């Protein structure tokens, strides 16, 4: 009995030591060959082969591939990567495995369409993904909305955007907002108003916390873009009237062109640079702004201010 206990103790100790050593060694091996990470590898790229190989359990396989797509995008986004080569194939596989996985279309389009580093910069692939989604789920008005969104925001194709919203408005139980958007696109309404309307609709029609947070962040950025745009117009107007550029924004207030020093949504005052440009004080707080950025500014990772 005694010898058995001794053997058991030694075997247990060996087991623990060997397991711990194998983990340490594997971590060292990973450091030696960093390219060995799996995120760039797509062993089977054919959705049809994968569907067959899943032996009918394609729903679970689709969930696994969707999780892979999310992890792939998140990992590369975190690294400020500008290439997302495997994202579109991963999404294609996911949606072929489960054509009714709506979340893969909705989030997939917002991963694919925006320019790097906020997305993969592949709006055409996003359009293809959405069209495939619509083909398989013709009664889902959100897919038409997302398609119109990509056409409007990323491709600036107002005719196609209007067409997508129009198609969506005919779907049973479609949000009435789609009809309004179709008309607005057709009229080529002001870009800020249309973009605000789109993001507001996104915010109001989704239950997903992350999509709402993203929409709010875009609405904040839109307000900043619009403020900078109008302030820049006022600076130019001042220069035309007086002949010299204003030295700071107080000059515009003194001229009665502004009622006070304007502030961004966080309460920071906008700055007027020596070369007459309007800049935001804290650009890192507004990851999606396109106006008022300092020259050569490198964007920080997006942070979401409001948890709706």
């Amino acid at each position, binding site marked *: 009995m005694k010898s058995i206990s001794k053997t058991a103790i030694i075997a247990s100790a060996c087991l623990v030591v060997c397991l711990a050593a194998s983990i340490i060694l594997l971590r060292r091996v990973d450091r030696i060959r960093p390219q060995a990470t799996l995120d760039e590898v797509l062993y089977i790229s054919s959705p049809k082969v994968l569907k*067959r190989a899943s*032996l*009918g*359990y*394609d*729903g*679970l396989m*689709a*969930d696994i591939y*969707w*999780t892979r797509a*999310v*992890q792939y995008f998140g990992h590369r986004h975190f690294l400020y990567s500008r290439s997302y080569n495997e994202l579109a194939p991963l999404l294609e596989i996911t949606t072929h495995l*489960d054509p*009714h*996985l709506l*979340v893969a279309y909705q*989030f997939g389009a917002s991963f694919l369409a925006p320019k790097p580093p906020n997305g993969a910069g592949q709006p055409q692939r996003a359009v293809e993904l959405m069209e495939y989604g619509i083909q398989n789920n013709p009664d889902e008005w959100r897919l038409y909305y997302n398609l119109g969104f990509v056409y409007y925001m990323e491709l600036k194709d107002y005719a196609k955007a209007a067409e997508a919203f129009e198609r969506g408005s005919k779907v049973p139980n479609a949000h009435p907002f789609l009809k309004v958007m179709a008309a607005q696109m057709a009229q080529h309404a002001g870009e800020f108003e249309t973009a605000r309307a789109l993001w507001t609709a996104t915010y109001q029609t989704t239950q*997903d916390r*992350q999509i709402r947070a993203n929409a709010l962040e875009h609405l904040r950025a839109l307000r900043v873009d619009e403020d900078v745009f109008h302030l820049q117009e006022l600076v130019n107007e001042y220069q035309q009237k007086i002949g010299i550029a204003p030295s700071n924004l107080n000059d515009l207030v003194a001229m009665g062109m502004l009622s006070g020093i304007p502030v961004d949504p966080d309460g920071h005052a906008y700055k007027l640079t020596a070369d007459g440009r309007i800049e935001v004080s804290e650009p890192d707080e507004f990851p999606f702004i396109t106006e008022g950025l300092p020259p050569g500014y490198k964007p920080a990772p997006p942070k979401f201010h409001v948890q709706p």
Partner: protein
Amino acid sequence: MSARIVFIASNTFREAVRDRVLYNLIAFALLLSGAAILVGQISIDIERLVVINLGLTAVSLFGIVIAIFIGIGLVSKEIERRTLYTVLSRPVRRWEFIVGKFFGLAGTLVVNTFFMAIGVFAALLYVSHKFARPDALIFVALYFIILQFLIICSLALLFSSFSSPLLSAVFTFSLFVIGSFAEDLRGFAGMAHGLTRWLASAAAYLVPNFSALNVISSIAHEQPVAVQLILHNSLYAMVYAGAALSGAILIFEYRDLK
């Protein structure tokens, strides 16, 4: 059902429990609870889908593995241990022995599925916080999975009645894989001509059609299942299992057990 069949079936069930078959429930519980907790953190918006897809896939695959690995030994093990001679020396007919074994294994799998179903619903409650009316569709998927088990059990018994356990496992598993491609096989038959068409069509109708019994993905998306499909699938599974069982009885009836 005769008392002798019930007796053999209950013994088969007891033997399976003694063989610690139900231990797979622990692995299943760990898998499902792990997935329910982790998926929300590593993916987006598919917690409910994963619990249903993973839960039902695991119920199906665990059950199929159990059906194959127990089914293939049901006859051969009795011969090997020579317990079959004791059984058959009593007033038990050979066909009763086969049918009893079938019901014993099917019963084991139904009990196993029952406990797994509790796990699936518990995980679903954990991620959704409440049950919705479409969740009742999961019962349909579970029922279809049990129908799958009946077919697999009968096939394992059929092969077990004349072949070694290893070959029986290979045959049964191969038929499960081919059966998952049954609709493709039928599609291939439709494209072929002449003798190839006949052979492909015959093969397509001969292998069990498991794809019609797999509704996991559509249930996960809350798509209803037609009552007619439930009826036809039930009849199909019973008829197919009946055919395989009849084959097993025929072979076993004429098998020289000396």
